[in-house]
């Protein structure tokens, strides 16, 4: 770059090549594992070169893990979270930046605080809410005495119930209920010059029109970044789908949760050697969609990561 430093360049390349090696070795071993037979894979030695049973193992993993349905569930969930997040954050940030109303700052802080506590930390009560999403509202009615009042006058017992377990809604909604994207949009809207709104208003554009025809096209890069990040985030979810889909025979679960069942542990089958070749084939299948997404969207992915965390 600035000066000639052959020795340092050599050292730099060595570091980078070793780094790449550390990234590749586990991935390569997984691939090799997925091409062997059960007999071959359980021989205690390092397999460096792939065998010839890749497609059989993929088929076995596909059938054993019900991966068709599971991948479909994962896809719907990830698309739902990503789309929901993009739309919801755009709307909320728009309302917060372009309107003045009492309690605006309160709402701002209310949403801001959600950044502090991830889903994993409040998992037990969130599960209870998902089992009946109207529980909060029922409790409010009960405590304020409205339930009694309604019953006295109309004879109807108010018992709200909406079970979200084993549904896409239940998988998606709790993951959208955070502030991540809202701040990305808020930051962006604040950099849009005031003159743009003044000009739009002079031309007779209302709020909705301004959002859809001015701000959204301007924030296309932000949307792509947020979409990529949220898709990955949702696809990678483990604890929430594990809990929110107890009906494995009917609704099924996501591909990532299913993965564990391909290589059972002490808690699921009392130990014993898993069929590593099939497990590794399943592992590859589940790994692939996010890797492809990142390969194609790398620019947006990096940009989104850095923007949403700050």
């Amino acid at each position: 770059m600035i000066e000639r430093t052959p020795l340092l360049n050599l050292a730099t390349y060595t570091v980078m090549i070793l780094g790449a090696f550390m990234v590749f070795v586990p991935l390569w071993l997984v691939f090799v594992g997925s091409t062997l037979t059960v007999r071959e894979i359980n021989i205690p030695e390092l397999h460096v070169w792939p065998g010839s049973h890749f497609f059989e193992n993929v088929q076995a993993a596909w059938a054993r893990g019900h991966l068709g349905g599971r991948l479909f569930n994962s896809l719907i969930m990830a698309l739902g979270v990503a789309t929901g997040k993009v739309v919801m954050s755009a709307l909320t940030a728009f309302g917060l930046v372009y309107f003045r109303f009492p309690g605006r700052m309160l709402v701002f802080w209310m949403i801001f605080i959600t950044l502090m506590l991830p889903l994993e930390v409040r998992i037990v009560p969130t599960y209870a809410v998902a089992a009946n999403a109207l529980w909060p509202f029922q409790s409010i009615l009960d405590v304020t005495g409205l339930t009694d009042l309604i019953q006295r006058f109309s004879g109807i017992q108010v018992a709200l119930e909406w079970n979200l377990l084993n549904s896409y809604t239940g998988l998606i909604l709790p993951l959208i209920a955070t502030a991540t994207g809202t701040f990305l949009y808020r930051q962006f809207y604040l950099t849009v010059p005031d003159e743009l709104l003044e000009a739009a208003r002079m031309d007779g554009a209302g709020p909705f029109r301004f959002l859809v025809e001015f701000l959204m096209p301007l924030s296309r890069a932000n949307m792509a970044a947020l979409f990529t990040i949220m898709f990955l985030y949702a696809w990678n979810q483990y604890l929430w789908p594990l809990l929110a889909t107890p009906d494995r025979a009917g609704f099924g679960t996501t591909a990532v949760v299913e993965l564990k069942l391909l290589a059972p542990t002490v808690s699921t089958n009392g130990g014993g050697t898993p069929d590593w070749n099939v497990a590794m084939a399943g592992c590859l299948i589940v790994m692939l969609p996010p890797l492809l997404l990142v390969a194609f969207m790398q620019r947006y992915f990096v940009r989104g990561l850095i923007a949403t965390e700050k």
Partner: protein
Amino acid sequence: MEKRATFSKTSIGVMFILPQVLLVFTFFYWPTGAAMYWAFTLERPWGGGNEWVGFDNFRQVFADRAYWGSIFRSLVFAAATATLSMGFGLLLAVACDRGLKGYQAFRTVFVWPYAVVAPAAALAFRFIFAPEAGIFAALVKQNPAFWNPAQNGYHAMAMIIICYSWKYAAYCFIFFLAALQAIPRSVIEASALDGAGMLRRVFDIQLPLITPTFFFMLVISITDSFQDSFGIVDVMTDGGPAKATELLVYKIYFDGFRGLDYSGAAAQSIVLMLIMMVLTFFQFRYIERRVHYS
């Protein structure tokens, strides 16, 4: 900063934020409130609602040696993964930032592990470290005590730390490289003209200039290691052997859903929430000083 020009219809503005407010209320504030309620109450054994017990649940949690064990393990896990992933992330970022020929290809590769699903990475590393198949089996055959993560807690812990760091180093790399590339080239060129060599520039200019990012990553690494470790622990070790890899979130899950002790799990959640809030508070204070909207 505020907008000068805004729309005047309050009701329409409220419509825009209403969906988010409802969602956040239902899936964030209500569960958090419920956790607090459960933490201070105990369900009566024969039904009939909850009984107020004050700080009893907390006292019980803190009197439990298993809980202190899981706090200690979580701290060890956080410290080890932060050191490993930030160390490797920074090293690779500095190497890439030199902009040598072909560094773009390396940059692409170094980002990959972050895109690998955590439980899939966990399964992969469980296979690689499995004492019954592959390279470790060969070593175990010579000396059975050499490696046995199913029996030896230290081995199991090492395994989850390596797996998590492998994935998380990519994340650190992305942030460190972005920070390094944000340093104005003119600063580096000026110091080169003054005769500072490459290594001197790294230690005296680049690293000091990215200390804010460094501290930011340190806090993020610790909080993330609390929440993102669950999938890896569950797939690799199930919290075992003999609870040797039972981290905080895993214990909450285990006590709440396997042990059905909602009050105990809620009290643990509250403690974890407090830890997270203190850490995040530091981080936000620092960010508020740095971000300028203009």
